C-alpha cells in the first residue's frame, strides 16, 4: 500500500505531495519526506566504496522505520522522487517500474509551457496520472 508520493526540486523545495491514505496525516508525511531528503543528500554527496551507486538514478530503500519504508529516485536534473509505502515486502522491480512511470508523468507535467519551474505542480492531469500509477501498483502487488 503506497501511503504517499512526493516530488522535491533540486533546491529541496517541495513540488508535489500526495497522500493516498484516509487519515489526515499530511503533516507526518511532510516530516517523513523531509527526513528522507537528508538521507538522499548523504548518499549522493558521499561516494562510498560502491562507486556504481553514483551513476544510478534509482537509490533504493532509504531507510525503514517502524511501520513504513521510503524509496528514493534521483533524476539527472536533481529532481527527487520519494515513495512512502506501508508494505512489508515490495519487489525491487515493482518499485523501479513505478518510478519509471512516475518520472514519465513528471516530465510531461514539467513540459507544460504554463508550468513555472521550481513552483508547485498544479496540473490535474498529473494528479490523475499519479493516482492511476499508484492504483496499478497496488493492484499489481496484491493480485
Amino acid at each position: 500500500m503506497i501511503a504517499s508520493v512526493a516530488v522535491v526540486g533540486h533546491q529541496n523545495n517541495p513540488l508535489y505531495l500526495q497522500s493516498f491514505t484516509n487519515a489526515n496525516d499530511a503533516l507526518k508525511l511532510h516530516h517523513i519526506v523531509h527526513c528522507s531528503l537528508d538521507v538522499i543528500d548523504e548518499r549522493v554527496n558521499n561516494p562510498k566504496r560502491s562507486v556504481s551507486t553514483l551513476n544510478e538514478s534509482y537509490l533504493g530503500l532509504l531507510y525503514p522505520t517502524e511501520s513504513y519504508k521510503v524509496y528514493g529516485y534521483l533524476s539527472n536534473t536533481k529532481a527527487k522522487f520519494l515513495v512512502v509505502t506501508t508494505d512489508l515486502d515490495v519487489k525491487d522491480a515493482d518499485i523501479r517500474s513505478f518510478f519509471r512511470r512516475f518520472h514519465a508523468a513528471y516530465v510531461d507535467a514539467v513540459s507544460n509551457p504554463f508550468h513555472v519551474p521550481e513552483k508547485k505542480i498544479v496540473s490535474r492531469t498529473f494528479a490523475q496520472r499519479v493516482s492511476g500509477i499508484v492504483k496499478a501498483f497496488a493492484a499489481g502487488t496484491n493480485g
Partner: protein
Amino acid sequence: MVSAYGRRFYATKPELAAHRIEAIGYQVGHQLIERYTMERPRFNDHLEVIKFICKDFWQELFKKQIDNLKTNHKGTFVLQDNNFRWLTRISIDPSSDNNDGSQGSSSEATNLLLYFPCGIIRGALSNLGIPCAVSADSSNLPFCSFMVRIKA
C-alpha cells in the same frame, strides 16, 4: 517566431528582443533536458554533461551531432557545427558587401536567430546544475560555433 519578436514586438529595441528570445530558449532547453535525460544514469562531471549535449541532445534536436568540441579545461568549451540546420536556408544578401563591417541586416537577423539555440544550451546546462553563459558566432554560414563559459 524570431521575426515576430524582432520586428513587431521590440522593433525599436533589438537588445530586448534578443533577451526575450534567449529566455524562451532557456525555458525550452530546461524542459527538454528533463525529457532526454530520463533513461540515462547520472553524470559524473562537467565534461560528461557537455559530451551528452554534443552527442545525444544535438542528435535529438538537429538529427546530427556536434562536429567539433574544443575546451581549455578551465571551464570554456567551444561547440562547432559545420552545417547548422536552422541556418542552412538563410539567404545572404550579396549586395551588402560594404567594408564598414555592418554587412546589412542579414547578420542582425542571423544573430537574432542564434539567440534561441544559445538559450536552449544555457537552459539545458543550468537544469543539469551547471550555470553558464553561452554565446554564438556565425561569421561563416552555415558553419556555426557556440562558446560555453561555465561560471564556477
